[in-house]
């Protein structure tokens, strides 16, 4: 209400303005930020973008309460900028380009309205303030979209990493192998455990060979998780065999007083597989002529 009382005549004139064809003038920021070297859009797309923006801003300025940022007209503008932000990010652009486009669009819009109407909008503090407040909110919408997109990308990357860090393979009916490569930390061990237990349940695996050949370091917490993993596998009714324990890891396990009672270990993956086959009554032999 206070804002309305302070509104100048020029602001009142802005809301009753019959906006002419300013769409062409508003294409310039689009060309500058999206059609230059980065080629994020072509000229036709920029023209459509400007035209859509003019329709939406005309709708807002001519609405019942142009100050209200919860109106459907303003929401439509927010959606417009969110969509634009999403489109640009998907095409390899960055959020800075969209923000700078929105800022440039704001200045160009005020100048274009001034030229079109002959009213000195650039001289009016209330008009400038009105647009600044609205464009700030629109820029926030751009950032929100950027953050959501970034979060989605991180989630997808995390999921991809999770899949590649737990390459569980069914090497024989009921025999799973899990080569663990790289550094084992607590969160990764938990991921591996989750994936492995679900896979045992899904495939009804009777033996799991966990190969640690690619693991160079292990700490107290991780070694406990590893033993927990073996226990969980056994609790599900499958046999767990650990293979490829490096001398350093063997020493670490001993010095950490890790109880390996009931845990089957073998020197190499091949020995582990032989043990798994033996337990399942599978006999693999070389064909002789």
């Amino acid at each position, binding site marked *: 209400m206070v804002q309305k009382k302070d509104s100048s005549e020029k602001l009142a004139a802005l809301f009753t303005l019959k906006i002419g064809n300013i769409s062409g003038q508003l294409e310039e920021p689009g060309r500058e930020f999206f059609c230059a070297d980065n080629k994020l859009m072509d000229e036709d797309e920029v023209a459509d973008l400007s035209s859509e923006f003019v329709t939406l801003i005309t709708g807002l300025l001519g609405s019942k309460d142009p100050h209200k940022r919860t109106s459907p007209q303003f929401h439509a503008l927010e959606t417009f900028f969110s969509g634009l932000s999403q489109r640009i990010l998907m095409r390899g652009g960055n959020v800075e380009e969209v923000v700078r486009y929105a800022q440039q669009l704001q200045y160009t819009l005020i100048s274009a309205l001034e030229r079109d109407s002959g009213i000195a909008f650039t001289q009016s503090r209330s008009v400038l303030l009105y647009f600044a407040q609205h464009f700030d909110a629109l820029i926030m919408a751009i950032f929100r979209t950027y953050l959501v997109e970034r979060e989605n990308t991180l989630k997808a990357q995390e999921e991809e990493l999770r899949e590649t860090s737990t390459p569980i393979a069914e090497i024989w009916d009921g025999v799973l192998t899990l080569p663990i490569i790289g550094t084992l930390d607590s969160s990764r061990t938990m991921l591996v455990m989750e994936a492995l237990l679900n896979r045992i349940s899904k495939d009804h695996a009777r033996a799991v060979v966990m190969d640690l050949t690619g693991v160079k370091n292990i700490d107290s917490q991780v070694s406990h998780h590893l033993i927990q993993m073996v226990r*969980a596998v056994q*609790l*599900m009714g499958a046999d767990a065999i650990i293979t490829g324990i490096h001398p350093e890891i063997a020493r670490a396990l001993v010095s950490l007083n890790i*109880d390996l009672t009931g845990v089957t270990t073998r020197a190499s993956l091949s020995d582990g597989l032989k043990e798994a086959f033996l337990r399942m009554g599978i006999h693999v032999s070389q064909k002789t002529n």
Partner: protein
Amino acid sequence: MAIAGVHLTRIGKGDFLFEPLSSMNIQDQDRLILELVEHLQQGQGRRLYYDLNTLPVIDPVYYGWLDSLARTCQTLNVKMICINMQPTAAFTLSQFLAGRPVFETALGIPD
């Protein structure tokens, strides 16, 4: 066979399948164990398959019940085998279990 809160089925010579229902009250374990022992003795039970299929989590209280049951079975020369343990249950149980449990585990009832 009638034990309140439990489905007990004879599935072979000396083999019994124990399926807990949602109405089973483990606070009343003395009665449950007593009735079960009677059935196992009458049926000359050798193996008791405890189906954990419907149990998403095994907490220390539930593990205490399984442990008591398995120890009782041991005194009767009946082997208790927990089957169909869910990944989440195996995970939670492995968190607080120090050694191997008294009961055996299997993926399911052997063919």
